[in-house]
C-alpha cells in the first residue's frame, strides 16, 4: 500500500513494471526494490525457515540480515531488499515444501 500524500516528500507516479512472484503476476514501479514492490502488494512472507518452516520475509531492508533472500531470474540468494525491480523479473521463494500464505 502506497503513501497517499506526504507533508515533506513527494512521490511522483513512476513507470509501471510487471514481475512475477512464485508465478503470480504483480505490478511494481520503477525505482522500487523487489522487496518494496512485494510489500506494496501486501506480500511480506517470502520463504520459510528450513527446519521449523517459520515464515521469513522483509526485515532489515538494508542488506544485513539475509531474511529477504530469494531466487531472482534463476540466480540464488539475491538480496531482494537491495535489488532494483526490473520489468519481467521472475522472483521465487527459496525453500522446499513451502506453503506461502498470501493475502
Amino acid at each position, binding site marked *: 500500500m502506497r503513501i497517499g*500524500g*506526504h*507533508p*515533506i516528500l513527494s512521490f511522483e507516479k513512476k513507470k509501471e513494471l510487471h514481475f512475477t512472484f512464485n508465478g503470480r503476476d504483480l505490478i511494481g514501479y520503477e525505482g522500487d526494490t523487489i522487496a518494496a514492490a512485494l510489500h506494496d502488494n501486501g506480500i511480506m512472507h517470502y520463504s520459510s525457515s528450513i527446519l521449523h518452516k517459520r515464515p521469513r520475509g522483509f526485515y532489515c531492508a538494508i542488506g544485513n540480515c539475509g531474511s529477504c533472500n530469494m531466487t531472482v531470474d534463476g540466480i540464488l540468494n539475491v538480496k531482494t531488499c537491495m535489488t532494483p525491480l526490473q520489468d519481467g523479473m521472475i522472483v521465487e521463494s527459496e525453500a522446499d515444501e513451502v506453503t506461502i500464505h498470501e493475502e
Partner: protein
Amino acid sequence: MIKRTGVPTKEQIQGKFHSLEQLTKPKAIIECYQEIPCNPCSTSCPVGAITIGEDINQIPIIDFDRCTGCGMCVYSCPGLAIMVASIKEDKAYFKVPHELLPRPSVGDIWSGVNRNGDIICDAIIERVMLNKNTDYTCVITASIPKTYLYDFVTVRCPL
C-alpha cells in the same frame, strides 16, 4: 516527570510564558526543557532575542522586550518546540508549527489540543504560512478562548 511522560508540568509551562502583560504583543514561547546540543532558534532570530551562548547545550533564554513575535524560530526549531503567543481581549492567538497533512485553510475550525493530546477547545484558523523559507514546516496562526492559554499547544484536524 517530563522525562517519563514527555509532558511538562504547569509550572514549567508557565515559566516559559514569563509576564502576561507583555503578551499583548506576540512573543515566542520556547518549550525547551532539556539541555541538548542545538541552537538554530538563536541563530535564526533576526533581532537577537534568543540567547544560547558558546555551549550550545544550554537552554535558550528569550528576551521578551526584543522579541517581535515574527515566528522565524517557530519553523527553525528542529524539535517543533516553539510557538508564538499573544492575548487580545478574550482570545489567545498562537502561531504553531505543523508538519502533517492535511493542512488547514483560513477560516477552518479545527480542534485545539493540549500537551497530553486531549482536545480542549475549538481553534479558528486565522492564517496559514508555508513557503521556501519555512522548508515544509507550515506555520499556522490559530485563535482560541483565552482561558486555555497555558493548556493549548497545537491544532488538530477534526475527524
